């Protein structure tokens, strides 16, 4: 099948292009490095199916830089067929520097068409580009586009068939030096681009405010605090006014199912145990009671609220600025500022968090970031449950938990930076301009992430509920509980029944937290149990991604750190609380 590759610098809108051309939804954000792996989709072009490939962004095709290898591989002779073409997506507000990659592609003699994206931004930035002249000079089609609104897409799609190799710049003979390239680019820029003085827009002024240390730090603190309260407000109200009433509405139906199925094994699977003769949504542990209530009425509202807020921060372009502000601290941990991205995504779900460690350049950084995230960053699902559970003991319980996680993260970072071989390169990162989020792309991203939670989390939770029942029914919990008793009871000060929750925690941590409720734990035990559930091991889905990203050897190392650190932390908490 014919392939069309989307290639361009990071954060020029390739994924938005991909989504528009194929109709496939992908996560799109305003920071470099959102796409970390090849994405493939299809579109019909002139009644022929073609494959569209979204290639992670790269600044050049020079070998020796790891992030750029994906693009180098895919345009190599082995993969690139004669009838394949490239759409080179360019940020037209940064034409000069984007043309460097364009020239490298042109020199390879590959059939290309250029999309001058962010065309709408050139207007208010006072940039004038003579598209016709650029097209003549480069000898390939050039189309101005604004992927977010769809402007220019008709023409682009129509002209895809005109894609061709440039006669003027194809160079199979000898390699061209970078200086030569830059001077060629300079000559073209002189010919096609005019800059006019521009008026600063209010959000451009905000760009400076949010990055200067004196104003940037208070600004970031205010933004994060605001986000926290927004998430709480949205989550709590969704529960109170939407989901709780919904489940209460269903209660009579559930009750009749309960009395109908009597006291059978089926009853304990479907409805679960009755608490004081009544269905308890949290404690009953049945398929259609706890199995649905926990994910839908306790976790989903917060997941939804979190992704709404995160999506907004991402699309505005706040994250690279936050990365700049925390860069100094992150360097103490062998990371750099961009490590806030895996940490923040990890707060939503550890799976995309682990995947996004790829924004970091070296193995050492990826190892440290993934390990800290797995140990110290609870996912939103788990946090929602912990919040629901610990809040009734007062704010102090929550503070102890999160303070512990923070302290562990700091100690782990300082220690790993010293003990783990490898380098932490200096920060060198592009900061995109603030952009107005588009309502449509915001809601689309929110829907994709929420859908992922619904389709991926709920089956696992139901499986978890099922396994809990089997484990209790067969007495396996009792058996493992006895074996683990010395550690769980003596070291951590928990009842041995807590083992069941730790076992289910491998599958889903939210349901595992819920399983602590019937145990009648004291506040101290509850804090220890929750802390351990956050730290001891990632859930199976996160584990799989980490294994893929880190490799088996490093994953064993990381796992060893998790277990040791968890036991020490649990023991210390047991001693001092």
């Amino acid at each position, binding site marked *: 099948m014919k392939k069309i590759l989307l290639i361009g610098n990071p954060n020029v809108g390739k994924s938005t292009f991909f989504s528009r051309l194929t109709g496939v939804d992908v996560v799109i954000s305003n920071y470099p490095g959102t796409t970390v792996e090849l994405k493939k989709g299809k579109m019909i072009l002139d009644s022929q199916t073609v494959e569209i490939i979204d290639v992670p962004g790269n*600044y*050049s095709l*020079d070998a*020796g*830089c790891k992030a750029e290898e994906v693009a180098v591989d895919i345009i190599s002779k082995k993969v690139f067929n004669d009838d394949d073409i490239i759409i080179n997506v360019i940020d037209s*507000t*940064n034409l*000069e*520097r984007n043309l*460097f990659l364009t020239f490298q592609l042109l020199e390879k003699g590959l059939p290309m068409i250029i999309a001058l994206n962010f065309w709408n931004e050139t207007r208010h*930035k006072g*940039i004038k580009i003579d598209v016709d002249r650029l097209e003549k000079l480069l000898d390939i089609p050039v189309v101005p586009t604004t992927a977010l609104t769809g402007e220019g897409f008709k023409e682009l799609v129509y002209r895809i068939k005109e894609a061709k190799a440039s006669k003027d710049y194809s160079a199979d003979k000898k390699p061209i030096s*970078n200086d030569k390239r*830059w001077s060629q680019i300079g000559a073209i820029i002189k010919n096609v681009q005019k800059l006019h003085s521009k008026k600063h827009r209010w959000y451009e002024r905000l*760009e*400076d405010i949010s*990055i*200067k*240390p004196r104003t*940037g730090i208070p600004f970031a603190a205010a933004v994060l605090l605001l986000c926290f309260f927004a998430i709480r407000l949205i989550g709590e109200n969704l529960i109170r006014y939407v989901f709780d009433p919904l489940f209460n509405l269903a209660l009579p139906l559930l009750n009749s199912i309960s009395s109908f199925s009597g006291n059978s094994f089926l009853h304990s699977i479907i409805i679960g145990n009755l608490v004081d003769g009544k269905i308890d949504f949290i404690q009953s542990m049945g398929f259609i009671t706890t199995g649905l209530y926990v994910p839908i009425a306790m976790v989903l509202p917060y997941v939804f609220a979190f992704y709404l807020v995160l999506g907004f921060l991402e699309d505005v372009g706040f994250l*690279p600025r936050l*990365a*700049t*502000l925390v*860069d*100094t601290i992150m360097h103490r941990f062998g990371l*750099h*500022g961009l490590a806030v991205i895996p940490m923040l995504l990890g707060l939503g779900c550890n799976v995309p968090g682990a995947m996004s460690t790829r924004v970091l350049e070296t193995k050492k950084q990826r190892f440290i970031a993934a390990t800290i995230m797995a140990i110290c960053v609870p996912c939103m699902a788990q946090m929602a449950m912990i919040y629901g559970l610990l809040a009734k003991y007062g704010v102090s319980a929550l503070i102890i938990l999160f303070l512990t996680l923070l302290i562990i993260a700091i100690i782990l970072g300082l220690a790993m930076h010293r003990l783990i071989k490898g380098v932490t390169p*200096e*920060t*060198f*990162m*592009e*900061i995109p*301009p603030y952009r107005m989020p588009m309502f449509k792309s915001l809601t689309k991203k929110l829907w994709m992430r929420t859908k992922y939670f619904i389709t991926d989390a709920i089956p696992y939770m139901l499986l978890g509920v099922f396994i809990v029942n089997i484990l209790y029914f067969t007495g396996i919990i009792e058996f493992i509980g006895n074996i683990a008793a010395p550690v769980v009871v003596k070291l951590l000060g928990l009842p041995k029944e807590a083992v069941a929750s730790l076992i289910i925690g491998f599958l889903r941590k939210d349901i595992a937290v819920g399983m602590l409720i019937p145990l009648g734990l004291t506040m101290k035990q509850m804090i220890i149990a929750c802390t351990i559930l956050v730290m001891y091991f990632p859930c199976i889905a996160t584990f799989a991604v980490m294994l893929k990203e880190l490799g088996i050897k490093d994953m064993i190392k990381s796992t060893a750190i998790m277990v040791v650190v968890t036991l020490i932390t649990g023991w210390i908490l047991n001693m001092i609380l």
Partner: protein
Amino acid sequence: MSKSILEMEPESSAKIIELDGSEEFKRKLATLNIRIGKTIKKIAMQPFRGPIIIEVDATKVTIGRGIASKIIVEY
């Protein structure tokens, strides 16, 4: 006269006259259009040996101080 961008005042602009590093180093900087002859503006400097934010053409870039000390400008 020359100095590194570390010594530049925030909000001031200057022309790059030297990049004190390997070819690989220069290649890396060039990807974000930091090249000899370009005019850059220093936007801010984070405290406690934190990174520096500069602007080249329309792009803002965060760079560590080690890199910044090797970017030499004319004044």
